[in-house]
């Protein structure tokens, strides 16, 4: 497992270089690697079904008890198969979809990074590791949604998706940590076998709510669903892969994963059922009037995600239909997106009413699309049928009408979307619909294969049965009884319901041209405008909008307040803060001035003269009206300082100070020829005010200097240096040895700073030269 992650990750980082070299062929390579990983995971199926989990561990942050531990069980295997399998097909698809795109290398990096991190997310056994992968998928999703970064909407929507999912991610982090703290383990497999506390602690409840929030944002649950349709700004392979088949299911994966721990929590069932149904209904209702193919599919994805959460909320009984629907949906929705993308690629159109007649003009494309529709509508003998039957059977037999009716309505909506996909094939062809050249092999392999697998899945029930059993084992945390799975149940109530759904959805799809204008009038078919009208005024996205504008307003106000452009205001604030901090920390330190003052150094006449020179020269620099006077005073100050250093046991400092002082004076003389006059610009009141502040600062710093001397701590690092300098460091000059040996890392940093300053000077002055020539 680790190897497959490393391989994909390596490919992601090699992509900028390799993809530039191999051009289109890189897509085949990516598909090959991804496909190879898929095969490896598929070969693990017998082991996992047999109950043998695979574990791999690498120490990561041993002091924190965090390890790079990966685990493969039924649930993660299912996800891993979806991620790598669809990943391979999507990679193949990109070859044709983004043919000759100039920024292809960047795209590959983001896409492969996503595949790696998503795979890591479902394999991680350590919750810290899981969280890291979780956030990384959000980041790569951000780059992919904003791939067409010349479009403002792409940038804004990428940001929106990132903010929503990462905000949820933060809640998730807190929730996971709380859970781990309460249960005493960071390992998912240990958490799962522990079961939950009975009755649950308050903190567990908080943890559950936070985790649910994280999962709801990631999996586009109501009221956070709005980012998903907006994410359709991404290139279509991304929509197929991230925003329908895999990433948006991360939240659902997490809920399923934590089901053994949190499933018995009294709030689990009500909150998941409500959330799931609301989302399923909202998605279905908003999907039907959409005109844009991708938004249509996005809303139906929202509805499907809601259904999945709902099924998890049903507890153990819901797990089998959950697993079936999870797989079926990934197959047909991924396929539907790929087919829609192919249609868009050939016709350069994406709106339903502008398409038609593809049945005749592009029969192979139409065939692939039709195949996907069969699965999406849940017609026998496809996997779509099997999964829908399982859900309906459960629903008809056990659910109260209060829960069943909304579920059925959601299914009607999702099925309508499936039927609507037939419009581009069968509707009367609009005029001037031209077909463009396309890389058919690349564009159609994906939807075809996904459709065929879903079709064949209905017949190959045996391997499916064992996979489902393994998923149930992971989600329920116990070995399930043998899974009952048949293609044909006979004429049951469920079958009748299914037929009813198909018919009513077909009717809605037939009158769609009348429904879409209603959607237009309600303003739900377009992305939310800045000044929403109709139903748009009630959209949850409004909350996001007003939150963002509040943040901007706040930033504006505080920037005007704190960054007003006046240096002296900044300096005043910094100095005032420094004075305050010094006073507070001296007062709070609890140090008292020792009763007999420590022995002071006797005043020496020469030293006193030097100090006097320094004091006088500083005042001269302040009072000088000529630049050269100030520079001369600085020179005198610097040389006196050097002499003082020399007399107080610091020959190295004296040497350096003299040299720097010389160079400073030289430089200032050079530079001052070119600099403006030494002007007096401030008014007298301002000068008096500044003088008062400066005096206060000087007094505080002077007193501080004195106090530091009195409070000196007895134990000092320096004595260690003084003792070890010869024995350990083979030197005699302690100062130099500190610089080049004991604290060499600091020095390394300092010479780097010096080098950067030199670079900065060179850059600044180079700009000037170009301007004059």
């Amino acid at each position, binding site marked *: 497992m680790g190897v497959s992650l490393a391989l994909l990750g390596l490919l992601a980082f090699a992509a900028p270089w390799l993809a530039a070299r191999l051009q289109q062929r890189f897509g085949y390579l990516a598909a090959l690697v991804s496909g190879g990983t898929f095969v490896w995971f598929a070969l693990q199926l017998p082991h996992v079904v047999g109950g043998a989990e695979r574990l791999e561990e690498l120490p990561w942050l041993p002091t924190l008890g965090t390890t790079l531990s990966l685990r493969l069980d039924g649930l993660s295997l299912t996800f891993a198969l979806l991620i790598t399998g669809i990943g391979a097909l999507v990679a193949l698809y990109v070859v044709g979809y983004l043919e000759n795109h100039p920024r292809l290398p960047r795209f590959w990096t983001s896409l492969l990074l996503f595949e790696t991190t998503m795979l890591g997310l479902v394999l991680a056994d350590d919750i810290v590791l899981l969280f890291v992968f979780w956030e990384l998928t959000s980041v790569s999703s951000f780059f992919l949604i904003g791939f067409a970064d010349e479009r403002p909407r792409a940038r804004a929507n990428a940001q929106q998706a990132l903010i929503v999912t990462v905000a949820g991610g933060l809640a998730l982090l807190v929730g996971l940590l709380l859970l781990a703290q309460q249960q005493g383990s960071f390992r998912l497999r240990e958490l799962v076998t522990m079961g939950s506390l009975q009755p649950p602690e308050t903190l567990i409840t908080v943890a559950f709510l936070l985790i649910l929030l994280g999962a709801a944002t990631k999996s586009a649950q109501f009221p956070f669903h709005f980012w998903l349709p907006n994410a359709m700004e991404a290139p279509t392979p991304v929509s197929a892969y991230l925003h329908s088949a895999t990433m948006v299911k991360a939240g659902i994966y997490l809920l399923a994963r934590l089901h053994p721990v949190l499933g018995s929590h009294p709030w689990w069932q009500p909150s998941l059922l409500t959330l799931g149904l609301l989302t399923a209904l909202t998605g279905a209702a908003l999907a039907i009037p959409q005109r844009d193919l991708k938004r249509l599919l996005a809303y139906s994805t929202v509805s499907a995600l809601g259904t999945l959460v709902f099924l998890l909320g049903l507890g153990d009984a819901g797990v089998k239909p959950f697993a079936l629907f999870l797989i079926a949906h990934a197959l047909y929705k991924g396929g539907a997106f790929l087919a829609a993308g192919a249609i868009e690629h050939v016709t350069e159109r994406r709106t339903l009413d502008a398409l038609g007649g593809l049945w005749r003009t592009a029969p192979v494309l139409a065939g692939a699309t039709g195949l996907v529709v069969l699965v999406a509508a849940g017609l026998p003998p496809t996997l779509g049928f099997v999964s829908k039957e399982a859900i309906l059977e459960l629903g008809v037999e056990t659910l109260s009408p209060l829960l069943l009716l909304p579920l059925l309505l959601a299914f009607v909506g999702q099925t309508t979307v499936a039927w609507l996909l037939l419009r581009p094939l069968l509707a009367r062809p609009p005029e001037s619909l031209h077909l463009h050249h396309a890389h058919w092999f690349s564009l159609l392999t994906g939807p075809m294969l996904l459709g065929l697998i879903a079709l064949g899945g209905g017949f190959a029930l045996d391997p499916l049965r064992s996979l489902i059993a393994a998923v149930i084992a992971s989600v329920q945390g116990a070995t399930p009884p043998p899974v009952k799975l048949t293609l044909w149940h006979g004429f049951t109530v469920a079958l009748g319901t299914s037929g009813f759904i198909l018919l009513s959805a077909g009717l809605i799809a037939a009158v769609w041209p009348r429904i879409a204008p209603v959607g237009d009038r309600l303003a739900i078919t377009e992305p939310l405008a800045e000044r929403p009208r109709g139903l748009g005024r009630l959209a949850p996205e409004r909350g996001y909008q007003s939150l963002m504008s509040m943040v901007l307003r706040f930033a504006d106000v505080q920037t005007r307040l704190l960054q007003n452009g006046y240096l002296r205001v900044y300096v005043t604030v910094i100095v005032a803060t420094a004075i305050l901090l010094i006073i507070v920390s001296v007062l709070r330190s609890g140090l008292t001035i020792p009763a007999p003052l420590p022995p002071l*150094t006797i005043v020496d006449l020469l030293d006193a003269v030097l100090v006097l020179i320094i004091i006088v020269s500083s005042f001269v620099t302040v009072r000088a009206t000529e630049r050269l006077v100030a520079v001369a005073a600085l020179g005198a100050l610097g040389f006196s300082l050097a002499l003082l250093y020399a007399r*107080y046991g610091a020959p190295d400092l004296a040497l350096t100070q003299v040299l720097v002082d010389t160079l400073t004076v030289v430089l200032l003389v050079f530079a001052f020829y070119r600099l403006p006059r030494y002007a007096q610009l401030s008014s007298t009141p301002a000068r008096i005010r*500044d003088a008062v502040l400066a005096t206060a600062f000087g007094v505080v710093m002077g007193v501080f200097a004195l106090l530091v001397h009195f409070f000196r701590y007895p134990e000092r690092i320096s004595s260690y240096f003084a003792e070890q300098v010869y024995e350990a460091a083979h030197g005699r000059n302690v100062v130099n040895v500190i610089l080049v040996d004991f604290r060499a890392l600091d020095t390394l940093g300092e010479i780097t700073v010096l080098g950067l300053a030199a670079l900065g000077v060179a850059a600044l002055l180079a700009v000037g030269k170009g301007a004059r020539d």
Partner: protein
Amino acid sequence: MEFLFAIMIGTLYGCSLYLLLRRSIVKLAIGLILLGNGANLLIFSAGGLVRGRPPLVPEDATSVPAPYADPLPQALILTAIVISFGVLVFAVALIYRTYRALATDDLDDLTATDRLGEVPEAAHQPVVPVGVSASNSQDGR
């Protein structure tokens, strides 16, 4: 001596702050120098004043005989002196460029970053946007 040092440090800090608060951009650079010297002296005197005993190991010994001047502040100050020099030169270069581009030495005229076009052109040279001139710099040599 400690009291004299304290007065000296206070003076350096006070004078530097006064200069930093001036509107004239050149005084800023002088203020920076004073501030650096003041900080160095503060660290130096915090290590204690020991006259005439540098922290060197004599030929016939293997450690520094006490009393000796504290070497740690010295090491800190030594690099600080050189770095303040670098920062000062950078500041002077920045001031110089600002003056050339905006034709003012009054900090109160520099309260916005994007006023390049609004300021009257410098008397001695046309105002050239930074981006344009950077591309010319190669053929300028």
